[in-house]
């Protein structure tokens, strides 16, 4: 084990941390930076609760070493709302469509949904369901999540 210095950007700000080389990205976010909005629901990159954006791509942060993110731009759920606290259109859509219940999978779900905006224009219900295949929600049955994503994407592309 060895400590290493790491510099990256998190939610638009440069961050420098001294970490163990085996520290995962999600540990860095949750334990070192105390950004606890990113959650851990499994340890096999199956549930997607830890999804964040790395240079704009949705990545399961339990499955990436913090060191692999050196110099990269990380966006977490804490980085979406405006500085005055106004929710991002995707966050607002989840609230409007009741796309969340217990809230635990929600940050990962919202981050995956945000990434979709950059990839697909006007996705169908089926395309959204396929795109969210990597995020498990145990509460909602997904129907309102699909609605939320449709509304959020429409608002983001306005």
């Amino acid at each position, binding site marked *: 084990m060895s400590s290493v210095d790491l510099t990256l950007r998190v939610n638009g700000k440069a961050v420098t941390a001294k970490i163990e080389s085996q520290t995962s990205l999600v540990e860095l976010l*949750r*334990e070192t930076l*105390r*950004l*606890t*909005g*990113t*959650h*851990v*629901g*499994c*340890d*096999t990159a*199956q*549930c997607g*609760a830890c999804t964040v954006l790395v240079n704009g791509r949705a990545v399961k942060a339990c499955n990436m070493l913090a060191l692999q993110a050196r110099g990269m731009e990380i966006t*977490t*759920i*804490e980085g*979406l*709302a405006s500085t005055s*606290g106004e*929710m991002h259109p995707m*966050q607002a859509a*989840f*609230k*409007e469509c*009741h796309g*969340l*219940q*217990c*809230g*635990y*999978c*929600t*940050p990962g779900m*919202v981050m995956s949904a945000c990434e979709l905006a950059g990839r697909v224009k006007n996705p169908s*219900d*089926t395309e*959204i*369901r*396929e795109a*969210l*295949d990597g*995020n*498990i*929600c*145990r*509460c*909602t*049955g*997904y*129907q*309102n*999540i*699909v609605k939320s994503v449709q509304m959020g994407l429409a608002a983001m592309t306005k």
Partner: protein
Amino acid sequence: MSDLSNQSPLGQAVKRKEDYRFLTGGGRYTDDIKLDNQAIGYFLRSPHAHARIKGYKIDAAKAAPGVLGVFTGSDIKAAGIGGLPCGWLITDVNNQPMKEPPHPVLAIDKVRYVGDQVALIVAETLEQAKNAAALIEVDYEVLPAVVKGPDALKPGAPQVHDAAAPNNTSYVWQLGDKAATDAAMAKAHHVTRLEFDNNRLVPNAIEPRSAIAHFDRANDQYTLYVSNQNPHVERLLMTAFVLGLPEHKVRVIAPDVGGGFGSKIYLYAEETAMVFFSKQVNRPIKWTSERTEEFLAIAHGRDHHSVAELGLDKDGNFLALRVRTNANLGAYLSTFGSAVPTILYATLLAGQYKTPAIHAEVTAVFTNTAPVDAYRGAGRPEATYLIERIVETAAREMKIHPAELRRRNFITSFPYQTPVALQYDTGNYAASLDKCLSMADVEGYPARKAATEKKGLLRGIGYSCYIEACGIAPSRVAGALGARAGLFEVGQIRVHPTGKVTVFTGTHSHGQGHETTFAQVVADRLGIGMADIEVVHGDTDRIPFGMGTYGSRSLAVGGTAIVKAVDKIVAKGKKIAAHLLEAADTDIEFKDGKFSVAGTDKSLPFAQVALTAYVPHNYPLETLEPGLDETAFFDPANFTFPAGCYICEVEVDPETGHTRIDKFTAVDDFGNIVNPMIVEGQVHGGLAQGIGQALLEGCIYDVETGQLLTASFMDYAMPRADDLPTFQVGTTCTPCTVNPLGVKGCGEAGAIGSPPAVINAITDALGVREIAMPATPQRVWQTLQQNRA
């Protein structure tokens, strides 16, 4: 819902107050909390399903870097700590109490399932704790294991608890009139018989269990943060029945909880051990379960094997239902493990039907598997699956349309006393059936079937008419049936001097949206804005008491306690207003947030009365205490009985065995509805779990070794977005008669009603009588091949 000032929010799809924090990363779940000087706990678990512990070597682990403590069953035994209690006493057919073998906090002498907790290691870091755990040597004598319920009763089966539960049996229990059932069955024109398993499930809330135990030496006070559905019950069970700690010196906080579905009701060994040893370590101890640990050690659900017989006369009238069920309890009695396959199961076997004679016998057995307890629906899905599968099968055998056979047997007059203990207060089953038939466009089914067949696929339709008993529970009834706790609820309304209100509830929200729904109820009654109300839950130091959230009880029981407390506030407010308005108490009316003298234009706003209560300069101090803060306990007179009708249509690809749910229609009677958006969300989530049980989910232990073969999300198929259809949901309404809100509860219906609808649809599509759950592509394909052969 921009302006609620002039309109009651009751019955409106009000957006949730709690969502902002969940959506912006501000949720505060147990693992998000980091206490000063916090150490990490790790549990060494049994790698064997069944083994005798002949000794331990823990010195190397104790000396490992960063280790603060290593504790085993020897420490538990030395401290004289008894086992975890079971909250429900079942009395068997011979009038004897169930067998309750000890459920030690850390394994003593024997381990009884893979994952049984053997040692707690506390260290500075998780890595150090894990490294130290690897240095512990446990001398195991591996014993043969038994994992399936029926196998536990076979001669020569491994004995999980030896003499403490001979023949692996906790109890053989019965309900109903056996002689009348046998006699009616003997006269039946037609008897339909089914034998099947109700598959074992893993609840899998996405937030794994987590706890932080902290002993504050300066104040001689314990604090436990825990991902839990009922913090007061957790504290009561832990202090009074296990650790003997003074209840008032233990604070249990269940902060934001990321889903429960029953699995976070129970007092678990992990947090109990952590609380006890936190004093010795004198550091806060945090433990968060890993996902595989969840699969191994959380309480599982279902796992019944049943034989059911339904006797009918020549017209299809039900004469008798006879049920024999083997319920797998797992290795130990979990907190409500004994109640699930009895009180929450057999009492529902009447379903929506006026079957005159019902008899059920339940044999509950121990096996070398994780304990089984309530999981969303808890007993009622097992009862519904049994009834709705056998009714559908009987309809096919007697060539009566499944909807018609159900309608012919519906209970139509209320109150209705079933032959299995419950009394239904109200309902209209035909109304839900009719609405569902129409919404599902059953008339258009033949055309859809033809279109499907043109594509070379198979199409089937399945029905399910469920009933459940919710609003748990009338304490007196529960007590007579063996409950060791009351099941009332507590609500406190604190009106602040400015007229703002804090609501304290003994229920716990872990996705259900209580912060919104309960505020709607209070806003309606007090005529104040939603923004002026805050709902607090999940902390034994802030809330007087509570029994928590499960059994779809929160609004029916907890919401009613809040209403009762509001009533007290209004009654006191009237006295204050009467004094200020110089009128008699009896002349004061309270409406739309104003106290007024009947028949005059003299009135006072709610906030002014509140201020007067706290600034009592002009106040009837001789007869009335200052302040405006009231608490109410509510114990319901009966259960509530949500019921509904679900219709499922599937398309099956005979080449791959893949089943696609093409249409799923759900019509529920939940009585009155406070927030239709939240209710719909609850139905969606329940349907997803029920469809998961029917198509995807199955917890499998190796029958030889007792190893859990489905211990990760890679082996256990959770429903994902592309596994599920868009549901069509609707409601009917017969207001509940046992609470002033007229509400019944909506949390479990989807999980209860949907599995038989799906399986009835698949068997219809395949033209077979039976298929086991989960109906995976492999199983469907095999069934088709066997059918062709």
